[in-house]
């Protein structure tokens, strides 16, 4: 996994250095003053990307649980609420949803007499959170359903109500199966946050776009952009693997 990646970056570097007519690394060369300014400009989008992703992930985890629970009900009406939400949200591509939230939702609010402006930051977060929540809901549902029915029956016979059963018996066991896929989902959010650039959010991708417009060096700048996401995702993956190991060890013990 690491070898081809290394080879690729070596190839790109060599190709870039060997024929300066196609590559112009000077644009992001940190040893020159202008190159260093450009690099700083590009990397400064990192904070926004991380913020958007983190807040959206936390919201998605909360909304996902709220959506998953009715899906586990014995009552058909509740299950229907879950199905409709999951199927509907899952079917909307992220970009149209982003446009709808950013350009459309304020108008909806206005027509209801509320003046709630939506800035690019929250527009991106709301869209990412809702879009992702359909998937986290399914992760929760699968995780909770994998816990044997006898567990909730035993909880009932010692007098626990629904909320207590979930909190003390089911979720602590299900969390081991839920956390790793949930963390994977976080990677998805980080990547999808790039769409926030189209509504003007100053994050990694937007910064790259803006620099390309002034410097006319898309190849070098987008290459760096890709490596920026790569670094972010690699860090998260390492976290996920650490988490999985910990959970696995816990389960055996």
């Amino acid at each position, binding site marked *: 996994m690491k070898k081809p990646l290394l080879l690729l970056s070596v190839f790109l570097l060599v190709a870039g250095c060997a024929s300066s007519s196609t590559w112009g690394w000077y644009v992001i060369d940190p040893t020159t003053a202008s190159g260093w300014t450009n690099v700083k400009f590009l990397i400064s989008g990192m904070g926004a990307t991380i913020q958007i992703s983190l807040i959206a992930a936390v919201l998605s985890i909360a909304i996902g649980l709220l959506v998953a629970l009715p899906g586990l009900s014995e009552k058909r009406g509740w299950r229907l609420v879950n199905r409709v939400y999951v199927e509907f949200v899952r079917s909307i591509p992220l970009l149209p949803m982003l446009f709808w939230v950013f350009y459309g939702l304020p108008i909806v609010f206005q027509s209801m007499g509320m003046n709630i402006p939506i800035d690019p930051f929250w527009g991106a977060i709301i869209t990412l959170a809702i879009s992702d929540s359909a998937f986290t809901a399914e992760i929760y549902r699968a995780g909770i359903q994998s816990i*044997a029915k*006898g*567990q909730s*029956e*035993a909880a*009932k*016979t010692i*007098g626990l*109500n629904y909320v207590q059963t979930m909190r003390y018996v089911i979720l602590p*066991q299900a969390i081991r199966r839920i956390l790793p896929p949930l963390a994977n989902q976080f990677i998805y959010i980080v990547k999808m946050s790039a769409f926030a650039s189209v509504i003007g959010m100053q994050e990694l991708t937007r910064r790259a776009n803006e620099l390309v417009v002034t410097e006319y060096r898309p190849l070098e700048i987008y290459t760096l952009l890709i490596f920026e996401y790569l670094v972010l995702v690699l860090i998260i993956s390492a976290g996920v693997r650490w988490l999985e190991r910990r959970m696995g060890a816990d389960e055996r013990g």
Partner: protein
Amino acid sequence: MPDAAIELVDVNKWYGTFHVLKDINLTVASGEKVVICGPSGSGKSTVVRCINQLEKHQKGTIRVDGVELTDDPKSVAAISSEVGMVFQQFNLFPHLTVLENLTLGPIKARGMSRKEAEEKARHYLDRVHIPDQADKKPIQLSGGQQQRVAIARSLCMEPRVLLFDEPTSALDPEMISEVLEVMVELAQEGMTMVVVTHEMGFARKVADKMIFMDAGEIVEQGNPEHFFTNPQSARCQKFLSQILQH
């Protein structure tokens, strides 16, 4: 009958079109020990699961301690505090220690203090003869020990009635007797018990009333002596001859 701990009147239940329970009438007096046996699929577990509302019956009346069981959450709360249950698969909570398994109900459902709940838990662990395993996880115990923890967990809720759904069927043979021994002791102390089991030795020793079920009906009921020596129905005779052979 005011003294009846459990009363089932004309209870019927269907799974879809399958008629699992047919006109079940059964009274369990306070302090009485009732053993239910019968071939698999006869509905004996379903009777027990209806009594503590893990399953809903569609027709007829079930009263626990005089309270009729309905969909009303109050009735569900009422039975869960009166009726304890021991499952075939133990159903201990694997992520909690033995002690936490025992104190969860008293603390969360009863609002008891942790200290008081732990004292009670240790008292009942002592009674099921495993005082030294309180801090282990269930998976570190043998099957027989796990089932005794499950019994202790039910006892911590101080139920009026204890239901057993084939409590020894998932156990290795050498562990059955340690569980039965605890059950016999409970019976001798006057606990009201409804036990679904094929352990006929246990039944002879403690049962006040034997019930034989087949195809969703109570085919025969009576005192154990009469039941074992002189069963009336052909189905019961056949069943007894099959399970008492060895």
